[in-house]
């Protein structure tokens, strides 16, 4: 009797939410959202209001600063540049890293392990340690007669993105390949499939979840990357990605806060939209990537 009573009591306790923790949790969330809120409301305010009242709602909701900011930072062009660079970089890194990981994992020789170790160990190299020689080295990769340049072009940046994204991507894919049963590949081969067919028809489809993780982690880091693009896309303002154009725009207009904030809101809108739509995959992708890393 007492036992059942205690059990019932225990159960009801489990289903009940903890009020204190709930309040605390939501208070913390205000601290997270607060700065975003402040940025958004102030982006609508007039010059006079933004100097005297940063917390209140705007007296007039006007999109004029958005229009002006979009024009001055060449927003839609930068958005297009970011989408092109990030999109193509991610497609390539998925293809290149998964193929390499499969070859390394299935080969299993000393040489293959050495290659794997080489890919992974560079995780400790900070970007600053390679940035100067990188730019200098690739400045020489050019064929003026056909206008081919690695520095100052989007395809150059894409190539660098692939190179720097490989460490994490090869690591994650190699771990995942080991969980794909070899027997599946063997039976495909007996049925007459070549190596490429075996990989793309049998192995790659089985790597779906890790492809999502690799894709998400790389999209986040490519999308937000500032230093690398700032070093290799300096010449032509039309090539600037979102972080780059934000940087230059902010440098120019940081006294006009309403304009600057309107520009910042626009730069994070794509991120927030994608997050709202894909947060389930993003969270599980980061979780999978982090736990294995």
């Amino acid at each position, binding site marked *: 009797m007492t036992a059942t009573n205690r059990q019932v009591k225990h159960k009801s306790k489990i289903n*009940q*939410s*903890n009020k204190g*923790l*709930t309040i605390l*949790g*939501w208070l*913390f*969330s205000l*601290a*997270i959202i607060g*700065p975003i809120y*402040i*940025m958004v409301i*102030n982006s609508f305010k007039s010059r006079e209001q933004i100097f005297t009242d*940063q*917390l209140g709602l705007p007296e007039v909701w006007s999109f004029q600063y958005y229009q002006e900011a979009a024009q001055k930072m060449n927003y839609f062009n930068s958005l297009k540049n970011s989408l092109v660079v990030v999109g193509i970089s991610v497609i390539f890194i998925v*293809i*290149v890293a998964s*193929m*390499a990981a499969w*070859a390394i994992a299935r080969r299993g020789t000393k040489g*293959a392990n050495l*290659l794997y170790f*080489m*890919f992974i160990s*560079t995780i*400790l*190299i*900070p970007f*600053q*340690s*390679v940035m*100067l*020689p*990188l730019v200098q*080295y690739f400045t020489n990769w050019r064929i003026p007669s056909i206008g081919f340049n690695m520095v100052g072009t989007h395809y150059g940046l894409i*190539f660098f993105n692939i*190179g*720097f994204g*490989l*460490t994490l991507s090869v690591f994650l894919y190699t771990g995942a390949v080991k969980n794909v049963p070899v027997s599946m590949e063997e039976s495909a081969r007996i049925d007459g499939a070549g190596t490429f067919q075996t990989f793309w028809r049998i192995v790659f489809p089985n790597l779906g979840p890790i492809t999502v993780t690799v894709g998400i982690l790389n999209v*986040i880091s490519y999308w*937000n*990357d*500032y*230093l690398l693009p700032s070093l290799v896309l300096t010449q032509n303002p039309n090539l600037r990605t979102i972080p780059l154009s934000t*940087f230059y725009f902010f440098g120019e207009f*940081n006294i006009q806060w309403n304009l600057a*904030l309107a520009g910042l809101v626009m730069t*994070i809108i794509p*991120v927030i939209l994608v*997050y709202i739509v894909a*947060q389930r995959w*993003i*969270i599980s992708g*980061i*979780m999978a990537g*982090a*736990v294995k890393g």
Partner: protein
Amino acid sequence: MNPKTKKNLAFFLFILPALFAFVNVVLIPFIMGIVYSLTDWDGFAFQGSNFIGLTNYIEAIGDSRFLDAFLFSFKYAIFMVILVNVIGFAFALMVTAKVRGRNVLRSIYLMPNLIGGLILGFIWKFIFSRMLVQVGMVTGLESIFFNWLDEPTSALAALIIVGVWQQAGYVMIIYIAGIQAISSDMMEAAGIDGANSRQQLFKITIPLMIPSFTINLFVTMSNAMKQYDTNVSLTNGGPGRRTEMVAMNIYNSAFRYRDSAEAQAKAILFFLVIMVITLGQVALTRRKEVQL
């Protein structure tokens, strides 16, 4: 073609694209960097540069700004490692406990992490340099509410606040994975044995989560030591060069002061320090991992 050659060729073809990108983008520049750091390279063509041994390294170590930057990065990193992990762990406990709307909370906590450090720094710059000033004027508490970016100590605090705000959600995700991996049987058993929730936390949850701490301490330490983007957008090293971190010091050596070879020597030293710290730290926490 015999099957073995064919197999070797297939292996080679599969690994070639990755190897090509990796060798050219990471490996060759890294090795070049080591070589360049031993010469008087001027940042342009390497031809004509002379081997000068460790001169750049001696100059780098003798550069008090560089040592200050290291000191500042260490200070920042220590605060970051502690605060990000304490708050991130608290977030993780909260969203895995009986809290209403915990999935929404989890998404909110993670959100700043998806916005790049450069943009975040700009957002907070408004708060620290405009809003706080206004608050100070209205409340009369101008000793607390002033432009935090004008003064080195408060600017460090500002950098830490922004960093914690950005990264607590990320380590939270890793802690959540760790908490969820602990079997509920064990918790129930402890509960039946009369362990209260604090005992459960300190005797079961935390010891079993040492692997998560290993990962998170590594990540936060390495991120803090490599911090650049928020440093640029929030303080840009100012006031003066008092909030310049190592990454920015290297950048400025190369591009503002045009001393490429010394900047490269600093970059190699930076790499060595990061390697020693992070590997040492991983070795230290690994020893504390328990198996149950």
